């Protein structure tokens, strides 16, 4: 699997590159800013890019802009954005261009090799990955208001969180030690309680769950 790394911190980039190589990935390019990233992808599109959200020159969200650009111009290249920011808005922006093959992870996750590799494989497989911290912030935000989320059982909320992170029914079942049938029952209960239209497509599902959680689609922003 071919990877391009974009991060302005050479130390982190090298460490990541070594770790990925050891895990069987092929790091085809390492770049330090968004422009170089786009050039590298144009020259030789990889399977996946790992992009630091914060890069020169402004050190704010260049990585995110670059990722969005890639989504449009290279839809087949999966993108995993590593972010310092627990901002639901950024995650939503990223997904809004199509939820298949994108991920928004907090940079801390890099410390957990297996988690990172799972996320990387997920996006390459065309799924979406949202950091649990971001998701819990979304769920928490709904929970504080008189909201249908309050009517969910504890288990259903867990399942909702897993869905929002981009997991499929099967992955959720494995994660929570539930049978596929039970997961399905929870999912349909959640959808009917929250009034979200169910969809078989996991990627469309994560987007509609996140959109619902963020309340963007309901006019009254809160």
């Amino acid at each position, binding site marked *: 699997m071919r990877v391009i790394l974009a991060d302005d911190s050479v130390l982190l980039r090298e460490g990541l590159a070594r770790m990925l190589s050891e895990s069987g990935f092929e790091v085809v390019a390492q770049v330090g800013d968004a422009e170089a990233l786009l050039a590298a992808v144009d020259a030789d599109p990889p399977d996946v890019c790992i992009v630091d959200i*914060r890069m020169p020159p402004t050190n704010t969200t260049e990585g995110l802009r670059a990722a969005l650009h890639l989504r449009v111009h290279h839809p087949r290249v999966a993108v995993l954005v590593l972010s*310092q*920011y627990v901002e*639901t808005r950024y995650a939503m922006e990223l997904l809004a261009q199509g939820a298949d093959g994108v991920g928004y992870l907090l940079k801390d996750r890099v*410390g957990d090799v297996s988690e990172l590799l799972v996320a990387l494989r997920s996006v390459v497989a065309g799924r979406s990955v949202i950091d649990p911290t971001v998701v819990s*912030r979304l769920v928490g*935000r709904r929970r504080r208001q008189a909201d249908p989320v309050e009517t969910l059982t504890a288990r259903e909320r867990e399942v909702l969180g897993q869905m929002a992170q981009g997991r499929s029914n099967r992955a959720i079942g494995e994660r929570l030690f539930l049978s596929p049938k039970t997961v399905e029952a929870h999912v349909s209960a959640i959808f009917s309680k929250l009034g979200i239209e169910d969809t078989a497509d996991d990627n469309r599902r994560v987007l509609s769950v996140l959109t619902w959680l963020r309340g963007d689609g309901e006019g009254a*922003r*809160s």
Partner: protein
Amino acid sequence: MVEAASLPRTVPGAHRPAVLPLAASLVGIAIALLALIVDLHRPNGESAAAIVLHAAGGLTYVLVGGAAWLRRPHNRTGALMVAVGLAWFVQDLTHLTSPLAFALGDFFFVAYFGFLGHLVVAFPSGRLETRADRVVVAAGYLWALGGNLFTHVLFAPAGSTELLVLHRDATQYAIFDAIQQGLDATLCVTLVALVVLHYMRGTPPARRAIGPAAWASGPMLLAAILLSLPGVIGLAPGVENAVPVLTPIALASLPLAFVFGLLRSRLAVASAGHLVVELGSSPPPERIRDALAETLHDPSLALAYQVPGREGWVDAEGRSLDLPDRRSSRSFTVLERGGVAVAALIHDRSLENDPTLVEVVAGAAALAIENERLQADVRARLAEVTESRARLVTVADQERRRLERDLHDGAQQRLVALALTLSRAGERVDERPGETRALLADGERQLRKALEELRRLAAGIRPAILSDAGLDAALESLAEDAPVPVTLRATVDCRLPDQVEAAAYFAVCELLTNTAKHARANSVTVTARLEDGRLRVEVRDDGVGGAQFGGGSGLNGLVDRIAALDGQLTLESPEGNGTRVEFELPCA
């Protein structure tokens, strides 16, 4: 442009035509002439000199009093003086042949004394200020009008042929006459004592005003005592003969002293001209006050200014100041320019008796005062800026301290612990792989914690979303993360200057923290919108209210940061009824 605010210049009657004083004065003059003619033509009368002096004594009161009455109709001094003059001539009724006239003259022989006492005690304001004043003056009236009536009707001398006499008894008459004269003397002494007391207690300008009366009342009342004493102790015949001559002279000393006081005031008014020259166009601030104090003979004089954009009055340094109220011993005169109050002279209440002087002096200094008012304005602003700058520095310093503490106590401690864990793992890596694995897992956990703390810290310093996506998005993120449920209505929809966005963001941040800490609120509503080029933000909670500036609320720092951008912040926090903070910032 000069208005004496504290003077009752619109009291009813103040602008009435001066018929009464004129009429009273003319009557007084006529009576004086009549008395002169009657007395001079009387067989076996006093010497011509004594008669002329007698008439002149009363006439002085009538003339000076009439003039004073015309000049200051609201001040009773003039009317009282005229009354003394008129009452003085009641004595002369005893020189007429009619028994009724004689009886009236005899009964009210010393009636003038009641008015005189009133005049002396109330001088120069014409008001009786204390209860003691009023009691003594009332006693004086009672005695002056009723004393002779009482003794001469109830205890008439043996051969009295006066009208209305009810009882004659030589011995009793002698006793009561002596008692009456003794009381006369006592009353006189009391009056003198009161005047001296007023003088001693008076402020410098008050003393200056009372001075003439004090000095004149001495000989005057002494003469009155001499007049009363013969019956008690008896006087040498030479002295007794001198009494009718001395008394009118002594009596006239009060109106003359009054005239002296007027002249002096005139001189002071004239010297106001020097003030203009002396002050020039831009004297040092304290020089204006000193010059005014000197001209008005009031060392306690103070100046107050009205500064644009500020309620109330400030002193030359820009500090807030209250004008004295009606009950205070201080009074004030407001200076106007173009119908707008610009400054006030705070002076001794006794200067109210000389409004012309205050007005002229204040008018003369108006230019310099106007100048100083502008300076006071500048100083007031400067003082505010200096204070707020000092607070901003303090806030910045506290922020640095907090950052240092957070870094030191948080991330740094964790990293140290991590280093320790790793080194322990390193020591055990060969012989105890199981333990090493546990230690490494532990280290990773510590590292995660440290990372999370660093992330929070960085977001707190300046959130990237603010720079990247603007105020609406940053407030949304803030609302998501707030411990109290937040309803956000952010409709700014455009980018604002960096410092405005940052100030608004951190203000809301601070307010939400305050709400979480103190308000015990169930929900908060944050509204942010643009209106006429100004950002208006409102944070309203349904908590316990009672929030105040100062203390540990952090609201002061907030006010300063808003003020630093020329913004304004208002706080409404009634006890038990939620807190509403609104601030606006110009976005130009």
